[in-house]
């Protein structure tokens, strides 16, 4: 394995820093849903760095913690036992609304996405959500989603434990400010600038005067990602581990 930092490694380390953000609600138990190798790598990086966090990986075949299927995930979340969840979206807008339904007339006469899964519940009931979508383009990051699978913010009378903490894409990190329902650019990945982010983002957002570059993973983080994290992931995400780390699953 050569030393060059892979984009997937930078994204995993970036997500891990957000997970451990001391300003955010504490994280004891993280659930990772459908095909999400980079969020899963971030969670394993946190765990393998020595932080006592419980991971429930829904798609892990051996050692899956649930004996009542996904119903148990939603019940756990309702009970307040899941602290952090990851969500994506076919479209995400500047108020952090997510659309997993589709484009055009309901229910997706333009492009039909798979559907909302548990997002319309999880986004409300988890103390914090990290939005993650690798594709960062005007077709994904839109001024206003065509359909709301789950709203980014809610009126005060609607029971809601949390909102998005951040939106991480293949180009940058946005923080979300729920009180203003607005994203603030936090850092750009190497090769990007405020101008390129503006050009590729369909919604308006705030930016600081000085835009910083997303840091590379540390040497320790890279060693963990390529070693212990990959060991944990190779069963569930064989194609990802082969592509990023040239690791083959045991026969």
């Amino acid at each position: 394995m050569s030393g060059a930092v892979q984009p997937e490694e930078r994204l995993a380390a970036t997500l891990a820093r957000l997970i451990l953000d001391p300003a955010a609600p504490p994280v004891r138990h993280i659930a990772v849903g459908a095909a999400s190798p980079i969020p899963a790598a971030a969670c394993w990086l946190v765990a393998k760095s020595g932080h006592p966090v419980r991971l429930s990986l829904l798609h892990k075949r051996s050692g899956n913690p649930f004996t009542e299927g996904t119903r148990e995930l939603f019940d756990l979340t309702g009970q307040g036992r899941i602290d952090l969840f990851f969500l994506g979206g076919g479209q995400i807008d500047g108020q952090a609304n997510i659309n997993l339904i589709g484009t055009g007339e309901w229910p997706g006469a333009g492009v039909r996405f798979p559907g909302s899964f548990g997002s319309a519940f999880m986004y409300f009931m988890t103390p914090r959500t990290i939005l993650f979508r690798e594709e960062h383009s005007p077709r994904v990051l839109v001024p206003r989603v065509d359909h709301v699978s789950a709203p980014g913010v809610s009126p005060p009378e609607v029971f809601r434990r949390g909102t998005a903490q951040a939106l991480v894409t293949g180009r940058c990190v946005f923080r979300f400010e729920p009180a203003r329902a607005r994203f603030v650019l936090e850092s750009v990945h190497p090769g990007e600038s405020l101008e390129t982010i503006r050009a590729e983002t369909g919604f308006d957002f705030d930016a600081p005067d000085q835009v910083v570059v997303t840091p590379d993973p540390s040497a320790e983080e890279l060693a963990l990602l390529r070693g212990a994290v990959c060991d944990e992931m190779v069963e569930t995400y064989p194609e990802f581990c082969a592509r990023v780390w040239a690791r083959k699953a045991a026969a």
Partner: protein
Amino acid sequence: MTQASLEALAASVPDGALLALPPDNSLPSVALAKALMRRGAKGLRLLGVPVSGFATDLLIGAGCVAEVQTSAVSLGEAGFAPRFSAAVKAGTILLRDATCPAIHTMLQAAEKGVPFMPLRGVVGSDILAHRPDWRVVQNPFSETPDPILLLPALQPDVAAVHAVMADEAGNVWVGRRRECATLAHASRRLLVTVERVVPGNMLEDERLAPGVISATYVEAFAVAERGAHPVALLDEYGFDAGYVAAYARAARTEEGFRAWAEEHVFNRIAREAAE
């Protein structure tokens, strides 16, 4: 509880039935879906519990389906479900979008025999705007404004799962996938395909009993070896990613789907008859 043939199980599902199917990580009976295609089922109303996968795409492609109620339809790593996507675009199926815990909650209400159950979240989602059968009410136990969603009980006509084994008493074993028990409790009829039939009564074995759906709920079962394939079955066999990816490629077009089904669904009977 009776043991029957796979084709007899399929024959017992009437056209137009509300048929509940678990998704690709929770013991769907792909064997029964293929048998329903062979019997030429029509107008089925499918319920994804709580999402839908391979079996649902097959039944839509074969023209067996009028409606789908689900929280998502996907082939996992193989991407979007091609016949589902085509049917939504063409407007040939009625799609009722839900969100996963809402489907579990509607089944749990039916399981308990109560008319509705509340669920947190969802308020402000466009899913709700398209579900006139779902209601938001003021929490009657709160003195401050607290809108909460009420979901009606949902009782499927038929539920179909693929279990590892049945025993002589007609109990079936689903291991850790105990959400299938809620589906069994909520549905009028449960049809089960199994890998094998074992002697004795699994409810007398303390270690097997928690993963058993009692014969009380099982209307009929049939032996269908590898009946979940290409989906994984607990620790019995893994997911056949190559098979699903090949299907996803073939089923991009109507003609491609028909050729695939001819080989993988309809010809099997001819092959087996010749053997």
